């Protein structure tokens, strides 16, 4: 059972990675990162539930990934709000200059 679950996780990770590279808008990139994190969590969980490793550790690791994803998305939302206020749009190829 384990490899099938891991293949689904890998496919999800790959889709997220594709989205992250292909899209230019910050919101779409955020969606890609969420997909990647979910794929990784799925893989961790499968590895913990279907091998001799500690199952509790795997479940807790998945919960920690969820916490990280929540923190990350809150920060990205704040960054999107600021970029939108300063530049009027949120595409990464427009916003490529830094100024002190």
């Amino acid at each position, binding site marked *: 059972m384990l490899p099938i679950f891991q293949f689904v996780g890998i496919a999800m990770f790959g889709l997220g990675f594709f989205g992250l590279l*292909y899209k230019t808008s910050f919101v779409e990139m955020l969606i890609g990162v969420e997909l990647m994190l979910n794929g990784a969590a799925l893989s961790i969980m499968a590895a913990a539930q279907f091998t001799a490793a500690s199952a509790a550790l795997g479940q807790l690791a998945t919960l920690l990934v969820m916490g990280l994803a929540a923190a990350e998305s809150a920060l990205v939302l704040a960054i999107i709000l600021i970029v939108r206020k300063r530049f009027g749009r949120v595409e990464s190829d427009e916003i490529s200059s830094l100024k002190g």
Partner: protein
Amino acid sequence: MDRLTPFVFGAYALLILFGGLFAAASRDLVRAFVGLLVSFAGVAGMYFLMNAPFVAFMQVLVYICAVSVIVFLAVMVTVESREGRNMPPKPLRRRLAAVLSGGLMVLMLSGMVLKHPLQSLAKAKAVSMAELGRELMGTYGLAFELISVILFVAMLGAMVLVHERRKG
């Protein structure tokens, strides 16, 4: 019941893959968001299949309810700035680069899984919620505290970032 498992697994896998495809490749932001939600729901189903109902409920609670609200807020903020502007189609080079690097990543990881197969159990293990709670408060207490600190700092950082000092 065991005979049903492959069908249920297939349904969840389809949800995840099609949702992910929509989320990653759709030009419409709202469509991408709905794809993301469908994908999250599929993952929650996978957790149920893996005999981890608590994590599945957390997936519903944290991802489908909380994170999706944050992503939806971001979609709402940006969707009007995209309206009325016809987005130029992305250059072929960029599309090719994204497909190639995503495909390479999938190939590499799948190769690793195939090359080093782990001893797989036939049935998923069951962990009671009481045991999870004990581990969280005992062995992995530090990780639990650290993730709370990270969440707190992230929220604080987000608030400081968007805070505007009142003028006058």
